[in-house]
């Protein structure tokens, strides 16, 4: 299970970083989403990976750590809000700047303040 988990984390992070380094806003937003998935999984994994262990004391012979689960929940909510914001911002930028480049202009044109 650990190998699978680590591999999933690695692939998600790899794809996320690759997409964030693209120059168009849509791949960047996708990359940010993938990266935040990877980060949430990582945070979850920090409570140690256990099977058949509810995060409630007394329900079974051993328990999972409930704190990382609560933290992940918070991180997911925040990440969701941030993604929503960045999507709207990217749309607005695409309309106002007439370009979906992250710099607002294509690099061959010169930038004026």
């Amino acid at each position: 299970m650990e190998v699978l988990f680590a591999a999933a984390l690695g692939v998600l992070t790899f794809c996320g970083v690759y997409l964030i380094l693209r120059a168009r806003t849509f791949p960047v937003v996708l990359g940010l989403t993938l990266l935040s998935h990877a980060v949430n999984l990582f945070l979850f994994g920090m409570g140690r990976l256990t099977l058949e262990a509810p995060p409630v004391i007394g329900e079974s012979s051993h328990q999972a750590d409930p704190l990382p689960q609560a933290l992940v929940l918070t991180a997911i909510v925040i990440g969701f809000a941030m993604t929503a914001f960045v999507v709207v911002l990217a749309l607005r930028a695409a309309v106002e700047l007439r370009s979906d480049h992250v710099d607002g202009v294509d690099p061959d044109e010169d930038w004026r303040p």
Partner: protein
Amino acid sequence: MNHLIILPVLIPLLAGAFLVVAFAVPLALQRLISLLSTALLVLIAWLLFERVMAGNHVLYTLGNWSPPFGILLVADRLSVLMLLITAVLAAFCALYAGRGDDSRGAHFHALLQFQLAGINGAFLTGDLFNLFVCFEILLIASYALLLHGGGIARCRASLHYVILNLVGSAMFIIGVGILYGVTGTLNMADLAVRVANAPAADLPLLTAASLLLLVVFGIKAALLPLLFWLPRAYTAASAPVAALFAIMTKVGVYAMLRVFSLIFGLETGLVGTIAWQWLWPLALATLALGGIGVLGAINLRNLTAYMVIVSVGTLLATLALGSRDALAAGLFYLIHSTLMTAAFFLLADLIARQRGEAADHMVIAAAMAHKRTLGVVYFVGAIALAGLPPFSGFVSKVWILQVAGGTDRQAWLWPLLLIAAFMILIALSRAGSKFFWRQSGEPPLRFRMDPARLGVVITMLLGSVVLSVAATPVMSLMLDTADAVLSPGAYVEAVEAAARQTGEER
């Protein structure tokens, strides 16, 4: 239990929530609520400041959960100092924005209040994950504030700012996750104890976490490789927003000081932490780049944005020295630079309003209607900003030079600091002569200046005078604060005492 300490978070949060729900109320009432909230914040910050500076830490356990469980708020000298600066700055920004800038977009005051809730929360929290949450609150409010007023330049600047900070947030969670995985706690005092007693096998992971946190706080504070979002964002932001953002880089600096002195420096001391050793070269490079940027600025707001970078470089280089005197000098400079850069953003706006289409670009245009008044204010502000006598910039700069003197780092800090100051002087005089001395022959634009806006700027500049007149008592307060930063043991003890107390009450 003393409920005073949670009010700096609660008041702006409630005021902001009310302003969002009641968005249909007239703008005048919104301004009144916003001003009342910030005025209350100044009062509460002052009460907390007096209490904490005189005695010890004030703690607040939310829901009466005994630490290290639950969320803990801790007010120590450093955090109440930051609270007070933020509250005063926010009051000025709310006043200035209330003269018309807030009507250029929706929800200005609500966003301002949420931003304040996030900033105050970040200063007060004693829990690392809570620090992350507060950072997110202040960031999402700042994203929307940056866009306030709309326009192409703001949109473009926002994209960089938002994307960079989202990546920063991801790194923050990774850092927090590693710390939790290794130590099993997120309470800062508890973390400090466990990191200090960590087995040698855990040290590489802990070092990795500390360096990740340095990157995260470096993005907020605008440390060299991570600062390229700042000039464009601060140049594009509307004047009161840019002035408020003057405290944002300082939130990053505060987080660095707090985390590295407490969590990673409990045993080795601040300078012993690996992250802190990176700070010195990076801060010097930031300072040098800021100085070059000031010379190349295209308009007055851009110039002020690079001034923010210079101030971050100076501040972090001073703090990186790590001695008690250096920390105190750095904190004094922090107060001065926050107030002065904020005042200069507002002053740039005042000048831009009178120059029509030329705005605050460094081009020759028709004379301003209130050339004399603005000229005098600009002259005084430039002296204060460049660090010439008799204002607080001079006092703080001399103090910084003094504490660096005699150490082996003097040879780096002195020339860089003095050359940067010289570049600032050149840039400010160049801008001043363009604005006030060289005019095209066209008749001046007719313009009625708003006395309240001018009053806010003059009052902020007077703050610099007050700071230099009252330098001795302020300096002794800063030395006390530096003592508190350098003795994280007292912080840990205060939290442990609170844990025992809540344990007994049960």
